[in-house]
């Protein structure tokens, strides 16, 4: 089977051409570095993505705090995790890197703050 992928690891966005049998890569072309191959393997077996979003803040200088998953999540869990996060709020003050939701949906992945938020009145 032939398959074309766009590597999303870096902005070069290599166009990867694969020949595979079942899910084993027999030939790979177009990746400019070795990360491309690893990406292609993951993409065939279990595509993962990092998630970035926001959480509502209570008692902060900002209304929202930007957050990310500290590891990649299985792609099909992005929407379920979003629905779970919609139920949560974070209490200010918040430090950058602080875990705001641990082990989200039993994935072992934490949701952490990507900016500091000091105490305030949510202007």
């Amino acid at each position, binding site marked *: 089977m032939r398959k074309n992928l766009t590597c999303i690891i*870096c*902005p070069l*966005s290599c166009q990867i051409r694969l020949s595979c049998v079942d899910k084993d890569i027999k030939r790979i072309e177009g990746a400019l570095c070795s990360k491309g191959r690893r990406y292609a393997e993951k993409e065939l077996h279990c595509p993962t993505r990092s998630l970035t*979003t926001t959480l509502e803040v209570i008692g902060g200088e900002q209304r*929202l705090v930007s957050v*990310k998953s500290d590891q990649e999540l299985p792609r099909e869990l992005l929407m379920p995790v979003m629905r779970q996060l919609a139920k949560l709020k974070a209490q200010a003050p918040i430090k*950058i890197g602080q875990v705001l939701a641990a082990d989200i949906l039993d994935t072992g992945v934490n949701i952490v703050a990507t900016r500091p938020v000091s105490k305030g009145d949510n202007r």
Partner: protein
Amino acid sequence: MQLKRELMVIGGGPAGLAAAVAARRAGVRDILLIEREDCLGGILNQCIHNGFGREIFKESLTGPEYAQIFIEQVQLSDIECWTGTLVTELTAGKRIIAANSRGLHRICAQAVILSMGCRERTRAAVDIPGTRPAGIYTAGVAQNFINLRNLMPGKRFIILGSGDIGLIMARRLTLEGAEVLGVLEKLPYPGGLPRNITQCLEDFNIPLYLKHTVTDIHGKHRVSGVSIAKVGPRGGILPGTTRKLACDTLLLSVGLIPENELSKAAGIKLDRLTGGPLVDETGQTNIPGIYACGNVLHVYDIVDQLTKEAEAVGRAAACYIKAGQSQLPLLRVQAGSGIKYVVPQQISAPGKRLLSFRVDTPGQNKYIVIKSGRKIIKRQIKQRVNPPELIQLEVNLPELSPGNIIKVELK
């Protein structure tokens, strides 16, 4: 009362932060950084997605994380920052008027760095016929609403323009539970990076309509739908291809232009190709001592490149302050066939010089040819060229013959 500073930096986004820190490290004691918003960091604060910092930090950071690194450096270097302050006027004599809650301030400086960033084009919105109901936003405004203000601008979206911000917003809106009916692109190829087509559109089954545009906006008080149609090879609408889509919001992501209202009023000459000031390799504009860096100069696609170049501009401004003067441009650099623009547009001193440019259409196996007068000084093959990807090449100019023109061409 007039305040005096050695260096004034206008704009506290990634470019201004990096330039201010670099100038401080190069020995400038007295720096004032002015930012319009209440926090430093500029547009990065609303760019909550990741992919920043791969070149400099070798990891993929989110926009706010990237900004925070430089905000901390500014704080550690004890640089004076005025946030919530709008510069209303800049003169060729390096005087500014700035307004904030404490009143109006007149400040003069030995050198000024312009780092005001860019704004979104809205021209397409003006050109679309139909009514003007609520529900039409630029992608960046919608990004600001959702990521900073916790406001959702609509439920069913059409996005016009396939630049990176439009693609990233398509994913963001979908994650937040809205429906994105499609992203429309007038050209036969997308405006954003291929990785964003994959991770922002394909991952969420959002259709990309190439060679399509919005021909009409419907709705009285609120957008009720848009008409879309195919675009022919000459850019006209193909008859018989129009159809109506019901939506409540139209987002425009049709490009960015450097924000140069202040520069223009100060008499700074702009390049009509980039929309930013004409500069030499140090970032100096036609007014000695006034420098420009970041998106005010030309719109970058990777913040790491922007940071590195802004740091160099900060150091150049420090040299100017020490020496009290700078070299004047000797050579012009021009975009030849197949090239959209080149920065810098002028060269003042011999040495190794980095040229940044964009091609005007995608292509494969093309030669980049750089000439000095008639002589070819560099030739490089590129497997792939793509307008959204800025190309940077270093050329060695051991000596400059004044009046010569350096030309970059695509063959």
